[in-house]
Every structure is written in structure tokens, then in C-alpha cells.
């Protein structure tokens, strides 16, 4: 099996990237991911249930996120909720995407496209 090349998965869809970004701070369940994304984008990105969980499913399938072992304290826990964690692969892909975007932003700055 050839070594894993994260750049082969680029570019990421914005929703996927946001999800990886949010999970980089800690394990969360789907609804919390949705809320955190809405907060970080000042309410501009609001995911519906369908797109949220389909995207998470795709990330899980691609091995970028996985079900987490971690659970919050029992009283808060609702056993229906699956907590997701960023896998090592997911971290690599998110980092590669960040580098790609950073290069784009640098190009844009150089072209005078910033205020």
C-alpha cells in the first residue's frame, strides 16, 4: 500500500474543512459541530440535519474522523449521540488544506486583494 498522501484529498469542500477545524479543538457530537460552525461563521453557515450528517458520514468513511472513545460526564450524556474525533489522517488532510489556502491567500495579498 503506498504511503498516505493527504494532498490527494484536496481541495476539501468548505463544510468538510469547517468540520475538521471544529473537531481539532476536541471531540464533539453532530449537533455541537453544527452549533460551533454557526458560531464561528457568525451565523452565515447553517447546516441542516441532512447535509450535516451526510458530510460527517463521508468524512468518517474517508477515515478523517472516527467515533470517539471519549464521553462527557454521565449526567450530560445522551447515549444516542456519537462523539466524533479527528483522526491522525484527518489532522494531516486539514493541515494540507490549510497550507493550500494559505498559499492562495498569500497570492491574493500579493495581488493587492485585501483591505
Amino acid at each position, binding site marked *: 500500500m503506498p504511503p498516505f498522501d493527504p494532498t490527494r484529498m484536496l481541495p476539501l469542500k468548505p463544510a468538510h474543512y469547517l468540520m475538521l477545524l471544529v473537531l481539532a479543538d476536541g471531540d464533539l457530537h453532530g449537533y455541537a459541530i453544527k452549533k460551533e460552525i454557526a458560531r464561528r461563521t*457568525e*451565523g452565515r453557515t447553517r447546516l*441542516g*440535519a441532512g447535509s450535516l450528517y*451526510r458530510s460527517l*458520514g463521508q468524512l*468518517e468513511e*474517508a477515515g478523517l474522523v472516527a467515533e470517539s472513545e471519549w464521553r462527557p460526564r454521565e449526567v450530560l450524556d445522551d447515549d444516542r*449521540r*456519537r462523539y466524533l474525533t479527528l483522526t491522525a489522517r484527518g489532522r494531516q488532510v486539514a493541515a494540507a488544506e490549510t497550507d493550500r489556502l494559505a498559499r492562495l491567500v498569500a497570492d491574493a495579498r500579493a495581488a493587492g486583494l485585501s483591505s
Partner: protein
Amino acid sequence: MRGGFARSVARALLRLYSADFRARYGAEALEVVEGDLGVARERAGLLAGWRMGLVLAAFGMHGVLDRITGGPSGGGLTGWAGSGWSHDVRGAVRSAVRRPAFTLVAAASLAVGVGASTAAFALIDALLLRDISGAADRDRIVEVQRIERGGEPAQWTWPDFVRLRDGSAPLASAALVQPGAVSLSEGAGGAGAGADRVMALFVTSEYFATLGVRPTRGRFPGAEADRPDGGVREVVLSHGSWQERFQGDPEVVGRVIRVNREAYTVVGVAPADFHGHRFGSRPSLYLPLTRHPAALADPERVFRSATVGWGEVLARLAEGATAERLEGALAAVAWEGGDPGGATPGAEPPPRIRAVPARPLPLEARAPVTAAGTLLVGLLLLVLGATSANVAGMLLARAASRTGEMALRLALGSGRGRLVRHLVAEALLIFLVGGVAGLAVARRLVPWFDPGRWVPTPFPIDLGVEVDGRSFAFALAVTTLFGLACGLLPALQVVRGDLATMMRRSSGGGVRTGRLRSAFITGQVTVAALLLVSAALFVRSLHEGASIEPGFTPAGVHTTRLDLALEGRDDPDEIRTFTTEVVTHLRGRPGVERVAVATDVPLDGGSSSAPVRVGSAGAERWIQSHFAHVTDGYFEALSIPLRAGRTFEASDGADAPLVAILNETLARTAFPDGDALGRVVYFALDSVGREVVGVVGDTSADLVTDEAAPQIFTPLQQDPAPTLHVLARIAGDEGAAGRLLGDEILAVDPALALGPVRVLADLTDLGLLPQRIVVAIAGALGALALLLAALGVYGVVSFTVRRRTREIGVRMALGSSRTTVVRGVLREGVLLALPGLLIGGVLALLLAGLLRSFMVGVGPSDPLSWLAALGLLLAVIVLACVLPARRAAGVAPADALRVE
């Protein structure tokens, strides 16, 4: 939509997802959908239903997508992998291509249905469902309304706004806003040519911060712009005017432009996606509120007064605050003003303060717009339903004729589910082709929502209706849903039962498919009857409306509007001089028959009213009347008939005794004894009476359908006002006459910002605009539904005729005449359509009841409309049966017996 119902729909929609998805995320996803539904339900009234519908539609759509891509395990990040579906899709494409005529007709009729409903959805979306474009963190933006005695939101006074802004309420910022027209010329020089009237927003400095808008260039005015001395002459350009007027000049910040003839410095440009906080009129400029013409003219009145209402208030809630907390904090404030213009401010009850989420459409307008929009989309979905039923009918006929083939496939080992999927894929393909074409149709329809296409508007109004991702999602959801239904119904009919029955059915019978087809026909005829009866009622009502006499002769009269307040010429003497100049100048021009200047023309939709007082002290009465200040020649220019006395003359000047002319209704109301001439009336706040010198005929004030209302006229020289219409009866070609009027007024003052020149007859038509729109919509939909019903009936009847060829042949061989055969076929068609006619007729009665406000002079049960519409429908249905009937009658018995 009820909460429990929505939840069960969500649960049903979850079944659309793959089993894999459901096992992993099903419960959680339902929880999130319920959360979203809860948020949607907090919206007011019908809007809640819309929002909830959108949430559910999106959830369902993703279910379909999940299935198509074969669930999470099917695709990974790039999606779409080869599953059984790709095989079905290929099969569907093959069979669609094999019958191009069928595919084209079906897809084209669907395109019309999908296109019309998507365009309507885009309109509703723009009107109701969108947030303020370009604003950030919108949850915290509220409209702070003060509700006074009347229950309607009143305008804020400046002192109370300051109290709100500087008080201890949990606000991050607040802004007072007042829209207004201004004249704009780019040149820094003096009275340069080429001034335009444009729409501006006069705002206090925190306006942009409140909406969370940041400049794309430069900056926004600071707090010093709110000082009542109006010393800050800074202007912010909208992105649109920066691009169009200044060609996107990168050096625009710092340029000096002239607004209302005064120099202003451009300090910033608003972002491209920001068009003000209100829907429709997109401001070209943002100016400090302290630079409003009224504020400059009389600062004392505006900035100190406890009664002068002065704009609406937008506010941004402090971090963590809620609208309720804000309302609570504001309830405790001692507000000053009362009802603007009320007699004694102190006696007013304190206003109630309400904080509502700020939306592009004002709260008061939302309920009627939502109701009308829901009705429109509902009707269009009905038409789409009828179209789908037609396509489903065709598919059913094809499927029925393929029962034998299906039975064979089953016998050869195909799964039943597999066959259903194959048939559904075929239907879906046709629907999706129709849906994509429908989007193109919608794009063509959307420009018709521009009000400027229908009526001359003083400013361009951009409703921002566009076929975007959301409309696309709507179209996709609608086509998928209808497509699934239309594919599944016939498919399940065909593969039902065991192999033996299927084989038997394939060679005759088909009773149940027949029943399903008649159900489709009933549906189509119902929709057609419903729409045709409504259309007939509206056409009748438009006819009645058009025959109403407006009380004046609009033909040949051209008019244009100008505002001397914007030109800095609103001093009473200036207005007098200017008016005299314009009238004298125009009178001498060739072709100009009559000229007048007036503050109001009939039927332009903006008439103002004020009380007229009659009777001696102690026994006085107040009569609310429309009013207009007019020059001599006004009644002659409009051919308003003089009933008694005289019209105004040039001698009714500023120094002459005050005079007035009443219309017949006011004369009759004010002086029931019958003689108004020579009597005295007091207009508005007059302390000196005016002598009635004439009585003229009634004219319609705003809409021709309005009842005659009291109206008073006074000489413009005695009551100079800055907002004027110049009107002239000009002989000859319309375009040339219009140009003449514009040019000659500009000859008096080249720097005037003149409104467009309009023909008064167009304005008269404007008076019936609501009726015209309803007739256009109902008529178009009615015609479409009629065509569909005819096609449907034709399809079914010709199908049965073909089936019964043998039977008909036998009958004819046994001596049946051609007439009997034809009559039999016609009877079958009519019986097929009858239930639909009856149901549709009854539903139309209900619909017309809802739309009563659009009808003039006819009631919802007008018998003529009913007979005409249902008669037409029946005639078309009979016509649709004639072709198959003739074919049946032409059957030669010998050939018929040889069939099969």
C-alpha cells in the same frame, strides 16, 4: 404546520436515507431536525409553516442524495459510486431516447409547471424568507417600534431616539433611519447639467455598525455626523452607484459630489451585497440624518420637538441580551412624545415599545404578503400537480402496455423491487429533464417581477428576485417529490399480483389502471375548473372596473414630478415665482394646449388628506378630505367638469382673498342645504376662512375603484408647497410631447432633477393594477390547466377507443350506426370529466371568496362567469373526445375483428 405532524413527516423522510446512514446517525439527525423545526416554529403565522417546510424539504432532499450515492459507504469524499442505480439510470436514458416525442412532450409540459412555481417561490423567497442581505450576526438586529394609540408603529422623535440610544437599555448600538429622494450630480462644479433624482437613506452614524456592515472602501461617518448643526457633509456611496456612476473609480473616496445642489465629500463605499435594510428600493447614497432637508430647514422643530415623528429605529442587542429583555428595559423609560400631530402631547398614553427581529419586509406587510404568496405558490403547485398527473397518465398507459414484458422479466428472475426501481428511474429522469428546463423557464419569468415593467415607478425598484441555490433546491425537491409519486403509482400498479394475473392483464382488462387514470383526470379537470372560474370572475371584474369613469379626461395629458425642497428652492416666494415661470414658459410653446402645476394628480396613488372645518364656532364639523394645491388651468387641463361658480384664475394670488373649490361630494357633505357657493371653509389649521368660489365634479383619488371621496382644491399661489406635478395637455405624438415637456421645464432651470415624464392615461391604468395582475396570473394558469385537462381527456379516451376497437367493430357489424358510436365515446368523455367539473366549481367558490378584495362589481357567485368558464371547459373536453370518436366511427368492422 403542527409540531407533531412535522415530526412524523421528518420520521418518514428519514426512511429515504440508506440503512447504513440510519443506523449510524438516524436518531441524532432526527433530534437536529426537531431542533431546527422548533426554531422555525417561532416565526410568525404562515411564515413558520414555510420555514418548517424548507427544513423538511432539505432533509428529504439529502435523503434522496444519500440513496443515489449509495449511503456514506458508497462514495467517500467524492461521492457517487456505481451502485445498482447507475444501471437504472442508463436504462432510463435508453428508454427515454427511444421515445423522443413522448419524452419531449412530457418534459416540456413539466418545464412550464416547474418553471412557474419556481419563479413564484423565488419571489416569496426574496420577499419573506431572506434575511437582510450583507448584514452580520443578524440574530441581534432588532427593529424597535413604538406603538401608539392607533396600534400601528409610529415614527420616533429625535429626543426619544436620543433617550433610547444613550439610556441604559441592553443595546450595543442604535440608529434612526429616514428614506428620502435627493438630487445627485457627480460634477463638483455649480449648477452643472445632469442631476438625477435618486433614492437615499438618511441615517445616524451607528446605522452600519448596527447592521454589522463594514465599508469596502474608505470609512463610514463618525459620531460627529449626529450633531444637530448638520456640519458633517459626508456621503457614503452604495456599491451599485460607485460601479455605475463612478465606473468603480478606485480614487472615489475624497471626491466631491453635489447632493441637493450642495457639496459633499465621498468618505466610503458600502459593500456589494448590502442594499439597505429594507426590501425593494435600493438606496444609491447614505447621508447623515442631520443633513435631511427637513432638518436643515427647521432644526429646532426636528431636534427639540416632542411630536415631530422622524424615522424608524434599528438596534443591535448587547451581547447576550434578548429582545424581551430590551423591551423590559425600554418599558421603564419615560418617553416624551405622543401621537405626532395629536392635540395635547401630555394627554397621550405612554407608547408601548416593541422589539421585533429586523427583516427586509416590514412586520405589518408580512402577513398579507405571506397569505397572497402562499396562495400563489399553492395554485401553481396545483397546476404542476395537474401536469404531473398528465405525465403519470402517459407513463401508466405505457406501463400498462408493458405488463407482458414485465411479467416476462419477472419470470426470467428479475426482482420485483428491481422492476419498480427501473420504472421509477424512467419517471424521475423525465421529471429531472423537465425540472432543469423549468429552471430556464423560471429565469425567463423572473424579470416580470420587476414592478417597473408594469407601472412607471419614481425610482427603480429591485426586488432582488433571483433563481439561486434556494430556488434550485425548491425546484429539485418539487420535481423529485412529484417524480417519485408519478413513477411509483404506475409502477406499483403494474407489478402487483402474481405472474399469472399479470399475464392475463397484459392481454386485456386493466380495470385498476383505468380507475387510477380516471382519478388523474378528475384531478386535472378539477384544477382546470377551479382556475377557469376564478379567471372568468376576475376578467368580469376588470371589465367592470375599466368601465368606471374616473371623472376626468386623461388622454393627451403629460405629467412630471419635481421636488423644489431638494433644489433648495422651497421658500414660498421661490415656489410662486418658479411655478409662474414654468406655466408662462410652457403656455407659449407650439402644441401645448393647457398647462397647470399641482401638488397632486388624480390616480397616482399618493393623495394626501387633511380635515376641512365648516360651520360657525360651537357648531363646527370636521370632514377629512383629500386636497390639492393647484394653479389656474388645472381643471381645464384635466377636463374636470365645473358644476357651479368658477375655476381658479390668475388673480387668485398670494395677496388676494383666500378661496377654495370643493368637489361635489365635499360640497354635499359640508353644506347639505345645497348651496356651497359663497360659504366659508377652513382648511387644516387655517385661522382665516376661505370662500368657496366653485364646485367641480368628483374624481377618483387613488384607484378608480375607490368610492367618491371629499376633496378640496386651493390655489397654489396661496398655499405654496414644494412637491409638484407639472401637467400639460399637448397635441401630437406621445413621445415628442413628453420630450417637449421635459425640455421646456429644464429650459427654465437646467439643474432641476426632474422625474420621468409620464402619460396620465398610464397612471389611470395603474389604478387597476391589482386587478390586472390577478387576471394575468389566473388567465395564464387557467389556459394552461385547460390545455392539460384537454390533453388528459384526449389521452384516456383515445386509449380506451383503441382498446375497444374490436368491441366497436362487433357492434357496428351488428348494425350500430356511426352516430351511436360517436355519441357513446363523447358520453364517456363527459362522464369522465363531470366529477372534476363539479368539485372544481365548488372549490372556485371558496377561492373567489378569499380573493374578494380584488373583485370590483361582481360577487364570487356571479352566474355569468360560472356558466362561461364551465361551459368553455366542457366544450374543450367534448372537442378533445371528437378525434377519438371519429376514429372509432371510422372503424371498418372487418378490420376491427382482425385486431389481435
